[in-house]
C-alpha cells in the first residue's frame, strides 16, 4: 500500500532542466522572469498531476476496501433481519415443550428446523452465544436485568433471555442476559 502512496516523492521533477537551458540562451531579464514563471508553473502542474495519479490509485484501493466492507455489512444486515423469526421459533418451542405436545414427532421436526437455522447462521460466520455461568462482558452481552443471587459471584450471567449471534468482529447482536448481583 505504501508503495503507491510514495509516488509523488519518487519521480524526479523531469521538467526542471528544460526551462533552464532556455533561460541561459536568452540574456534579457524579462525572459528569465518568464522562464522562472514557466518553471514554477511546470513544477506546480507536475505536482498536481502526481497528486491526481496518486489520488486515483488511493481511490481504487479505497473502493476495493469499501466494496468488501459493504458486502460484509449487507450480509450482517440480511442475517440480522431473520433473527426475530428464529427467536419466535424458539419461543414457540419452549411453550410447546411445556404443553401436552412436548414429545410429539412434529415438535421434534420443528426442533430440527430450529437447529438447521442456527446451523445456517453459524456457517455464515455468526456463531450462537447463549452460555450461562460466564462473567458478564459488555462486548458480548447486553444486561436486561439484575437479580440478587448468593450461589454465584456477582456479575455472573445466570440466564440468557435472547441468544447473541456473531463474534467480536462481526456481531449481529449481543446476547440479552440476566446478571447476578449481590444478594441483599
Amino acid at each position, binding site marked *: 500500500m505504501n508503495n503507491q502512496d510514495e509516488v509523488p516523492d519518487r519521480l524526479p521533477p523531469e521538467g526542471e532542466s528544460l526551462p533552464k537551458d532556455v533561460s541561459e540562451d536568452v540574456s534579457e531579464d524579462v525572459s528569465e522572469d518568464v522562464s522562472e514563471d514557466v518553471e514554477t508553473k511546470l513544477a506546480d502542474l507536475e505536482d498536481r498531476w502526481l497528486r491526481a495519479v496518486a489520488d486515483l490509485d488511493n481511490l481504487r484501493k479505497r473502493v476495493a476496501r469499501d466494496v468488501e466492507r459493504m458486502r460484509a455489512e449487507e450480509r450482517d444486515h440480511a442475517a440480522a433481519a431473520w433473527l426475530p423469526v428464529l427467536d419466535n421459533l424458539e419461543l414457540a418451542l419452549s411453550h410447546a415443550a411445556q404443553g401436552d405436545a412436548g414429545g410429539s414427532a412434529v415438535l421434534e421436526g420443528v426442533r430440527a428446523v430450529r437447529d438447521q437455522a442456527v446451523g445456517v447462521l453459524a456457517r455464515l460466520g455468526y456463531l450462537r452465544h447463549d452460555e450461562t455461568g460466564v462473567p458478564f462482558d459488555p462486548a458480548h452481552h447486553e*444486561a436486561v*436485568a439484575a437479580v440478587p443471587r448468593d450461589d454465584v459471584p456477582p456479575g455472573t450471567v445466570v440466564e440468557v433471555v435472547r441468544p447473541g449471534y456473531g463474534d467480536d468482529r462481526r456481531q449481529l447482536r449481543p446476547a440479552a442476559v440476566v446478571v447476578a448481583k449481590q444478594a441483599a
Partner: protein
Amino acid sequence: MAKAVGIDLGTTNSVIAATEDGHPTVLPNAEGSRTTPSVVAFTDQGERLVGQLARRQAILNPKGTIYSAKRFIGRRYEEVTSEMTAVSFDVVEGPQGAVRFKVGEKMYAPEEVSALVLRKLAGDAAKYLGEKVTEAVITVPAYFNDAQRTATRDAGRIAGLEVLRIINEPTAAALAYGLDKKANETVLVFDLGGGTFDVSILDIGEGVIEVRATSGDGHLGGDDFDRRIVDHLADDFQRDQGIDLRRDPQALQRLFEAAEKAKTELSAVTQTSISLPFITADASGPKHLNTTLMRSTFEKITADLVERCVHPVEQAMEDAKLRPADIDEVILVGGSTRMPAVQNLVRRLTDGKDPNMTVNPDEVVAIGAAVQASIIKGEVQDVVLLDVTPLSLGVETLGGLMTKVIERNTTIPARRTETFTTAEDNQNAVDIVILQGERERAADNRVLGRFRLENIRPAPRGTPQVEVTFDIDANGILNVSAKDRDTGAEQRVTISESSNLAKPEIERMVADAERHRSEDARLREAIDARNDLDSVSYQVERRLEELGEAVPVHERARAGQLVQEARQAIKEEVPLDRLRILTGELQQIYHGLGAMASAGAAGGPGAGTPPSGGGDEDVIDAEFTPSDSE
C-alpha cells in the same frame, strides 16, 4: 497528513464526519455504527467503557453509567437541580459550585465524560481513515452560553484534540446544505432528536451566518413517540387479554423494539403490522400480539407531542420579529423529523415551505461541521472543476448498432480503447462511423464523423484486430483513431464539435433514449441474437472445412443442415427464441467438433467458446476481441 473532522456531540448520540476528496462523509465507529451513544461507564473493575458497550451494562451499573452529560456541561450546580432528578447517577456540587458526577469515591467533571466520548469518536475515525485525527470542529446548541461553549472546548482539549472552532448546530446544518453561499436568507432549523427539540432562526448574508433566535423543549423527542406506541399496544392487549405487558421486562423490551420499528415504517407506509408471537403466557397457554397499526392511529395518539412543537416555533419567530412568510428556507434535523406529521406541521408553520431534507437528518450536523473544518483547513480551495461528456460516444457496428466506447457522464479527460474485428472473410477495410447519443440503433444517433482504415491483410472474419481509441481532452475535443494491430496502419480524425451541443438538445436526446428504452433494448437483443447465430454458424462451417474427412458423414450432414437452417433464420425475421435455440444447437456441435479436433491435433484454433460476431456489410463487427466476448 492529519485529518480535520467535524463532530456532532449530542445529548444521546454523537456523530463524526470528515471531508474526503471534497465530499463530507460520516465515519463509522469501531462497532461499524454511524452513530455512537454519548454514554460513558466506570465499572467496579476500574474499566472505562464508552458508547454502545457502556449502554449495554447500564442496568447493572446505574450509578456508574453517565449519560446526557451534555445537559450538565459548563453549568453550575444550582442550575441543574431539575436535570439531576432525571438521571440515575449521582450529581454533586464540586469546587466553586461546579457540577461533578460521583462514581464510587471518584469525582468526574462533565467535560471529562464528554472528552471520553470525543476520544472514542476521534480514535475510531483515525482507525477508519488510516491517519491521525488531531483537529476538530465541534457543534453545540445555539442557546449554549459562553461557559457551556468553553467547557465543550475543554472537553475537546482533554480528549487530545485541537478544537478549531465551536459552531452552532443549526449553523452546521445550514453549511451542510451549502446555504452559506446564499446572499440574503432567513433560515429556520427545526431539530427534533431523540430527546431534545430545538428551533433556531438564522440570518445568512455574505458568508456570515448569524443566529437570530432560538427556542425549544429540552425534553421532547423520538423516544416519547415510541413510548406512546408501547402504551397503545399494551393497553389494547390488556383490554383483550387482561395481562399488562409493561410489568414483564422482557415483554416490555420486545414492545419497545417493535414500537421503534413501527414508528420508522410508518414514515414510509400508511400502515404496518406488529407481530410479537409468544409475547406472554397464562394458565390457558401462550399469548400472541398480532396487530396492525395505521399511520392515522399513530398520529392520533401522538398529536399532542407534535403540537408541543408549535409554541417554540412561534416563539422563535416572534423573538426574531418575523412572519412565516419571511422564512426563505427550512432545514430538518434529527431522525424524528422523518415523521410525516412533523413535516406537515413544519410546512403549516412556515407558510407552506418545502423543508430541506435531502441530507440524512441524523448526520446533517456532523456533515456541516466537517464542511466547516475543511473550510478552515483550506482543503476546499484545491478543487479542480471537472467536466463530463454529456452524451455517450461510440461506433457503428454490425447490424446497424451503436456500440458505446465512452459512456455519458464520464469525467473528462478520458481515453478508452476497444478492439474490434472484421465481419467478413478477407475484408480489406473497415469504416469507422463515430456516433454520439444514447439510442441503440446507429441511425437514431448523431454522426460526428467517419473514416476508413484500409489495407487490412486478407484473413478469415474475426481474425484481424482493429484497436479503436476514443480520446477526449479537457476541452471536450474528441480524437478517434483506428489501428490495425497486424500491420500497424493507423487512421485518425479529430472532432471538436462533440461537446458544443446546447443543453436542451442534450436533454432532448437523453429523454428520447429514455422513452424508447424498452423498444431499443428489444431491437438490440434481436440484432445481437442474429449476430451470435451468424457467428456460430460461420465457426461451425469453418471447423467442418478444417477437419474435412475426420468428421463422420452423419455428423457432417447434421451440422450442414443446421447451418442452412441458421442462414435461413437470419434472413427471415424469425422469433428470438428460435434464433437462440439454433445458436445453442450449433454451439454444441461446435464443441463436439472441437473435441474431435483436439483429439486429432492438439490445440486447434479457437478451442473453447466460439467468438461471436459476423455480418454482411463492411462496418466492423460488433464484437470486441475474444477477451471481451464470452
